[in-house]
C-alpha cells in the first residue's frame, strides 16, 4: 500500500508505534510505504510510478523511489529538504513487483528508509 502524504512513516513515529506494538501492518498486508519526510506534489510523479511498475518490472518500492527521484530531478524549484520514503513490511515482500510477488513470511517486520532527493 502506498500513501502519498508527508511524514507518513517518520522513523521516530515508527519506533514509537513499534514500542507500543501498533505497527499498521497486519499479516496480510505485504508492506506499507510513503514519504517519511516532507514531500511535494509533482505532475509527472504518477506517470513515472506507473511507467516503472509496468514497463521495467521493477520492485514496487524502487518504482516509487525512482518516480520521486526522476520527477523531482526534472523540477525541484523551491525544494530545500531531503526527501525520503519509508517502507514497513514483511521482508519476503520487499522484492514484490507487479508480476512476481511473495506471501508475507511473518518472520519479523522490516523498516527501510530510502533517500529519493537531495537538495543542492
Amino acid at each position, binding site marked *: 500500500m502506498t500513501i502519498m502524504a508527508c511524514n507518513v512513516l517518520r*522513523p521516530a513515529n515508527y*519506533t514509537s508505534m*513499534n*514500542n507500543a*506494538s501498533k*505497527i499498521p501492518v497486519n499479516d496480510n498486508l505485504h508492506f506499507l510505504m510513503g514519504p517519511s519526510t516532507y514531500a*511535494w506534489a*509533482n*505532475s*509527472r510523479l504518477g506517470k*513515472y510510478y506507473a*511507467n*516503472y511498475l*509496468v*514497463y*521495467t*518490472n*521493477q*520492485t514496487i518500492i*524502487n518504482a516509487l523511489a525512482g518516480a520521486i*527521484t*526522476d520527477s*523531482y*530531478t*526534472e*523540477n*525541484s*524549484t*523551491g*525544494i530545500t529538504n*531531503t526527501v525520503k520514503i519509508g517502507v514497513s513490511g514483511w*521482508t*519476503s515482500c*520487499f*522484492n514484490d*513487483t507487479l508480476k512476481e510477488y511473495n506471501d508475507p513470511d*511473518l*518472520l*519479523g*517486520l*522490516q*523498516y*527501510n*528508509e*530510502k*533517500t*529519493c*532527493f*537531495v537538495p*543542492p
Partner: protein
Amino acid sequence: MFRAPLIKISALIGAIIVSVINSPAQSLRLEGESFQPPTNFPIVWKATNDLPSGLWIYKVMPEAFSAAVVSNAMRIGHFEMKDVSRTSGEQSPLKDKHLIYCYNRNEYGKPRFLYIAPTIGAMEYGSQRDYKATVEGVPTTEETERLARDVLFQLGIDRSLLGEKVRKGYDETSTKVDPKTHQLTGPPQVVVRGISFERRIDGIPLSEAWCFLIHFGSHGRIEDFKLRWRNFLPSESHRTLTPTEIIGMIKSGRSVFPPQVGASEFDVSRSKALTVVKITPRYFNGSGKEWIDFIYPYADLEMAAGTVTFHLHCPILFYEGIGKK
C-alpha cells in the same frame, strides 16, 4: 525593369522569414504558466551576480554513445549479446526509436535490466537485490564517490563537464523487528549508498538536478544507475539580455511561473512590487527521457514579493523581437 529587383527583394524577405521561423531561438518553450504582472507594477533589480556576455544554443545530435561505451555499459551490467533485444521504446521509460534493451537474471535470480537510448543520450540500469540476503561491505561515502567516478569514466563521460559539487546521501537504511520480542534489533544499518553528479555546459548548470545517479550495495555492487547525457553541437550564439531588458521581458509577460514549492501566483498577485534577488542561468534539458531539438539557456530568477519568495523562468538571449519593450 522593376520585376527583377522585386523578385530579388521578395526572395530576400522570404529567406529572412524562413530563417526567423526556423531560428532555434524562436522555439524556446519554458515550462510553466505565463506570468503577467499588472501594468505599471514596479520591478526592482537587486541581483548582484554577473551573467556571461553571451551564450550558445546547442543543437541536439543523435548517437550520444560510441560502440565502446555501449560495450562498457553492458559489461558493467553483466550482459552478453544474447541478452540484447531491440524494442520500439514505446514500452520503456526512455523514448528512443533506437533503444537497446538488455535483460537477464542476476546472482539472486532477480531481474536485471539495462536500457540504452543512444538518440536521446540516456541509460538506465537496475539489478534487483534480494532483501533477505546479508548486507556487508557497503562502501563509505568517500568510496562511493570514487566508485561512481570510475563508472563515469567507463561510460565515456568527460569529467571536466561535471559540476564540482556532488550530491551525496542517496542512501537507504534498514532496521528489523525481532518477531519474538517485537523490539528493533538495532540501529538503522546503511544497506545502499548513492551519489549524484551534475552536468554543466560552458560552466552553466542544466535544468535537471543531476545527470548521473548511482547506488552501490554490498561490496560495491552496483544496484542501479541513471545517466542523462545528450550529444550536442553549438548552433547559435547570442548576447545575453541586460537586467533592464529582463525586467522588460517580465513586464511584457514573456517570463513563466514554473511549477514550484512554497509560492503560488495568488500569493504573488497580492504584493505591491517585485524584486529580482538572484539570477542563475541554466540550460533547459527537458525531462532527459525524450528527444528535444535544441538546448537553450534561460534565466532562473529568484524573486521576492513582500515576504513571499518565488521563482520565474525567463528567456535570457537577445535576438530579433526579444528584449524590446
